[in-house]
C-alpha cells in the first residue's frame, strides 16, 4: 500500500480535464436560477440522488462521476445523504407509483432554493416504461424539473456537462 501511495505522489493525476458545460443545459437553466440563489449558494452544490424507479443503469454512471477519472468533487459538487442537506435532487427512473410519495416527500424537505435534475431517458420521458400501470409519469409530472440530462444511461461526461452548466449558472 505504501508503495502505491508513494507512486501516486509522483505520477500525474488520472483525472480528465473539465469538459465544457452543455450549451443546451445552460439555456434550460437560465430560467431556473435567479440572482438571490446565486448569492446564497456561492460555488458549491450538494446533491441528493433519488432513484424513483430506475433499472440502476443511471445509478452506475452517477457513481462513476465520483471516481478518480471524472472527480466531480473538484467542481464543488458533492453528494449528500439527506435531502435536507441538498441544493439539488438528481432523480432517475420513470417514477413508479410506489416511489411517487417518497420522491414528493424528498422534494418537500429539500430547502429552498433548490433544483431538480431529471437524469436519463426514463426520468425525462418515461423511456421504455412509459404508459405502464405502475409508472406515474416522467419526473416533471411529479415535481418541477430545472434540467434534463438524456441518455440510456447518460455517460459520466454527459452528467458532468449538465452539472457544470448548473454550477456555472448558479455561481455566475
Amino acid at each position: 500500500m505504501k508503495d502505491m501511495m508513494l507512486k501516486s505522489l509522483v505520477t500525474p493525476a488520472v483525472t480528465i480535464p473539465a469538459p465544457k458545460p452543455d450549451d443546451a443545459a445552460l439555456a434550460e437553466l437560465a430560467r431556473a436560477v435567479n440572482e438571490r440563489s446565486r448569492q446564497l449558494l456561492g460555488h458549491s452544490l450538494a446533491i441528493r440522488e433519488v432513484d424513483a424507479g430506475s433499472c440502476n443503469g443511471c445509478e452506475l454512471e452517477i457513481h462513476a462521476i465520483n471516481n478518480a477519472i471524472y472527480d466531480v468533487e473538484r467542481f464543488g459538487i458533492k453528494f449528500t445523504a439527506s435531502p435536507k442537506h441538498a441544493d439539488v435532487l438528481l432523480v432517475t427512473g420513470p417514477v413508479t407509483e410506489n416511489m411517487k410519495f417518497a420522491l414528493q416527500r424528498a422534494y418537500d424537505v429539500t430547502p429552498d432554493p433548490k433544483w431538480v435534475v431529471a437524469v436519463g431517458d426514463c426520468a425525462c420521458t418515461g423511456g421504455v416504461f412509459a404508459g405502464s400501470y405502475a409508472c406515474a409519469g416522467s419526473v416533471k409530472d411529479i415535481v418541477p424539473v430545472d434540467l434534463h440530462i438524456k441518455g440510456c444511461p447518460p455517460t459520466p461526461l454527459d452528467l458532468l456537462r449538465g452539472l457544470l452548466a448548473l454550477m456555472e449558472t448558479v455561481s455566475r
Partner: protein
Amino acid sequence: MFFSTQPVSTKPWPRYIVDAATWNKCADAFAAGTHSLFGLWADSHLDNPAAGAEIHMAIYENATHKLAVATLPAPDGVFPSVARKHAPAARLERTIMDMHGLRAEGAVDTRAWLDHGKWRQAQPLAVQPAPRGDVATAVADYAFLPVDGEGLHEVPVGPIHAGIIEPGHFRFSANGEAVVRLEEKLGYVHKGIEKLFIGADIARGAKLAGRISGDSTVAYAFAYARAVEQATGTVAPPRALYLRALMAELERIANHFGDVGAICNDAAFAFMLAHTGILREETLQLCHALFGHRLMMDVIVPGGVTADIDAAGADKVRAWMAAAEKRFDKLMRIYDDAASLKDRTNNTGHVSRKLVDRFGAGGYVGRASGRAFDARKNLPYAPYDTLNFDMPVLHTGDVNARLWIRRIEIAQSFAMIAQLLDAMPAGALCAPVAATTAGEGIGVVEAFRGDVLVWLRLGADGNIARCHPRDASWFQWPLLEASIENNIIADFPLCNKSFNCSYAGHDL
C-alpha cells in the same frame, strides 16, 4: 424426475403438465433438499383466456444438474401452496397473488408483496384486473412481523437510502446495537415490466429485457435472446456466441471490480474504492470502444449480436487485461494484509450452508457458503461448454468469502476472455429470427450476481404472449435478512454490499 407423462415442451428443458399430487411431491422434494426451487410464476393466458390460468414451477435436481418445469392448471384461481412446505416460495406466491389474483392455498404469509396499493390497476396480469379500490385498502397497511421483548426498538430505513443506491425499505428490530430481526419490504421500483412484455414484438422485448436490471443488461439480453431462439428455432452463429460470452465476462469483471471497492469503502477503507473505481472505469471505456456502449446495452439481440470486434479490438482487450490483472492482484494483496479491514469482513454477515442450499441461492452468495452452483457449469450453454474454467467455492459464508469469490471469479473471467479471443470463430454476427406462430423457450444465464432465468411464450401473432424474468436476487434477498441477525446495525451496509442484490431485477 417425478414425471410420468410426456413433456409438452422441451426447449431446451422439458415442461410437464402435472396434477396437484405431483405438484405437492415437488414441494416435498424441495423441503427434503434433493431439488431446488428455480422459479415460480403464473400465466393467465391474456392472449387466449379460454386456456385458463396455469402456475409454472422450475425445478433443479441437485444431484443430476437437470432442470424441468412443472405446470399446474389453476382453473379455479387457486393452487396448493409450495411455501407451506418450502419457505423460499413465499415471496413468489405473494407476487403471483399481486400480479394474477391466483391464490396459494394453505400459504402462511398472505400479505401483498410488490403491490403497495398504489398501482392504477390491481392484479395487472389477470384476465380481468381487479378494481383498484377493492385491493388498495387491503394492501395499504403493511403489517411487519412483530418483535416483542424488553429493550427492543425498531429502526425503519428507506425507501430512499443514504447512498446512491436503489430504493427499498428495511425494518430493523434491534436491542441496543444488535439486530434481532431484519425484515425487507421491496417493490418500490416495480415498473410493470411483465405487463409491458405482453403483446410486445421480439425487438421491443429485447429493449425491455436489457433494462430489467441495468448492471446485468448483458446477462438479461443474453438469457432473453436464448429464450427467443429456443422458441423460434433460431440458431445464432458461432461468432455471435463468442462475442456474447466476451460481453458477459466484461460485465462480470466490471461489476466485481465495483463491488470489491464498494464493500471495502463501507468498512471505511476508501483507498480500495479509489483504485477499483479506476479499474471499473477503464473496463467500461473499453466496452464503449469495442461495442459502442459503456454497459453494452442492446448489443445482444435475438439471433446474434449487433457489433463486432476486429484484430485491433482484440489487442485492446489483451492490453487492458494484462494491465488490470496486475494492478488488481496488487490491490487484493493489500486487502489481504490489512488486518483492520479483515477484522470488519471476517465473520461478519454469516450465511450457513444449510440456508443457501435451502434457498437455492446462486452466485457469490451461494458459492461463498459452499453451494457449488454456477449456470455456466451446471446448466452449460454455448460457448461455456467449450471453455476451460473452475468454479470457486468457499465455505466460511461471511462478507470476506463473498468478496474473495469475486476476486477468484475475476481471475477466471480473464482466463475465459483469453480463450474466447484466441478461438473466436469467423463468420456472421446475426441470423434472422425465424417467424413463428406460438412457441416457448427458456434461457438461463449466469449474471455477475447469479443465475437469471427467462421464460418466454410467443402467441399466435408471433408477438410475446408471456415473458417471465427471474433474477438471482429472489433467492438471495431473504438470506440477507438472515445474515444480519446478531450483527450490529453499523455492519448492515457491509453485509448489504457483499450481497449487492438487485432491487430493479426483483421488483420488475
